[in-house]
């Protein structure tokens, strides 16, 4: 371990997780590859979804990988930022919609 929890060089080492447990790693990478193939959704569309989700889960490795991938696949800066706003809006909305629970509770106990 070094002094940083995150190191950008570690992204390239992702494939090495099989060193400690090969069988499930192989399954994961096989599944991962299938998920991102052109299918009912195009590989390009999936890249943008991955970019948005990367921001929602705030994974720096994923943001690194899918910022490059989405841009390489041809999304513009504005399109990519709008995708991030979608993630942010859902995250913000997810917090805010719980306000209804709060209101319900307060209304239950208030005179």
């Amino acid at each position, binding site marked *: 371990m070094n002094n940083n929890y995150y190191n950008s060089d570690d992204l390239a080492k992702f494939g090495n997780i099989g060193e400690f447990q090969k069988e499930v790693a192989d399954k994961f990478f096989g599944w991962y590859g299938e998920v991102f193939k052109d299918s009912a959704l195009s*590989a390009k569309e999936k890249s943008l979804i991955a970019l948005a989700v990367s921001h929602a889960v705030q994974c720096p490795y994923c943001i690194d990988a899918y910022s490059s991938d989405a841009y*390489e696949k041809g999304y513009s800066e504005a399109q990519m930022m709008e995708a991030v706003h979608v993630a942010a809006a859902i995250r913000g909305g997810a917090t805010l919609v719980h306000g209804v629970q709060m209101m319900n509770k307060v209304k239950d106990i208030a005179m």
Partner: protein
Amino acid sequence: MNENNDSSILSPGQRPVKDSMNSLKARHNILADAHEQIGILEHGANHDDAFRLAPFQQKLGEIGLYPLHPTGIEIFQVNMGKMCNQVCKHCHVDAGPDRKEIMTRETMQLCLDTLKNSPVTTVDLTGGAPELNPQFRWFVEEIKKSGKHIIVRCNLTIILANKRFNDLPGFFRQHAVEVVSSLPFYTADRTNRQRGDGVFEESIKALQMLNAVGYGKEGTGLVLNLVYNPAGAFLPPSQTMLEKEFKTELMKNFGIAFNQLYTITNMPISRYLDYLLQSGNYEKYMEKLTAAFNPAAAKGIMCRNTISVGWDGFLYDCDFNQMLDLKISCKNSVHLSQFNLANLNKREIVVNQHCYGCTAGAGSSCGGAVDP
């Protein structure tokens, strides 16, 4: 004044075609020197071996391809000169309006003599902007007489750069020339960032002019292919997918039709090397290229069926080697004047670290992906 000797590219009063950038040579940039570039490719940005990759020769050796030999010359690619009306940021030729190196009619005659009785099927004309060579039309007409298929790598904006070029689409049609044109993206932002302000808009007009005479239209037999280059430090996406997108978007927004899209990887030489170094992307880009080494792309690498001719008649394995001044390694056949097909077909192709650019991912050639 004889119009053919008119060295000014632009109509009077017209703004320079985009971007005030000059060639590396005009800027006296150290990267204008091919030896400096090779030093960087072999020993890192500071020539101190702090950054080194597996030698390309070794990589070819691992798959039984070293030394690399030709499969037989089919394509005769002629670089008609370094003069260009554009100054694209990724140009491997370091072309621009300030470059004066252009092929003479005598050297073109040597090309024509060589083409006679040769098994070459295709003559691929490139530059710079080949149309800026005053002998361009004569050369095309003469090649046509030999019955060879002709490709012109037309940068599109040249058609609008001066009224004397406005009839190029008709000239191309008359000689059934295949037109291959760079359009790095179907939107203005990415295109102009790479090729200069306003290039996208003029390229669109030029494409519409080519379409108007039948290029890219079904049933005309007039082929118009487009070239995609990444506008940045990354590799091209899938050629098949991107072609679909280009076709949809160009038709929807501008009514433009074309035949095929070629995705081409940027080679880490000349102005693109300068960009990589200036932007701090050089090492990562080279690592990306080497990590994506594809044996199938290496087997189909274009230097195996292509010969490249420089503006001065010297022979090279490809246009990239030409720009790195890596002359062909072939006994008694290094210049058109001594062209010896048998010897050339037995030669060892000169490779170096830049060759990783042609073997990465789906591979890259002047005809696009090698292993799509």
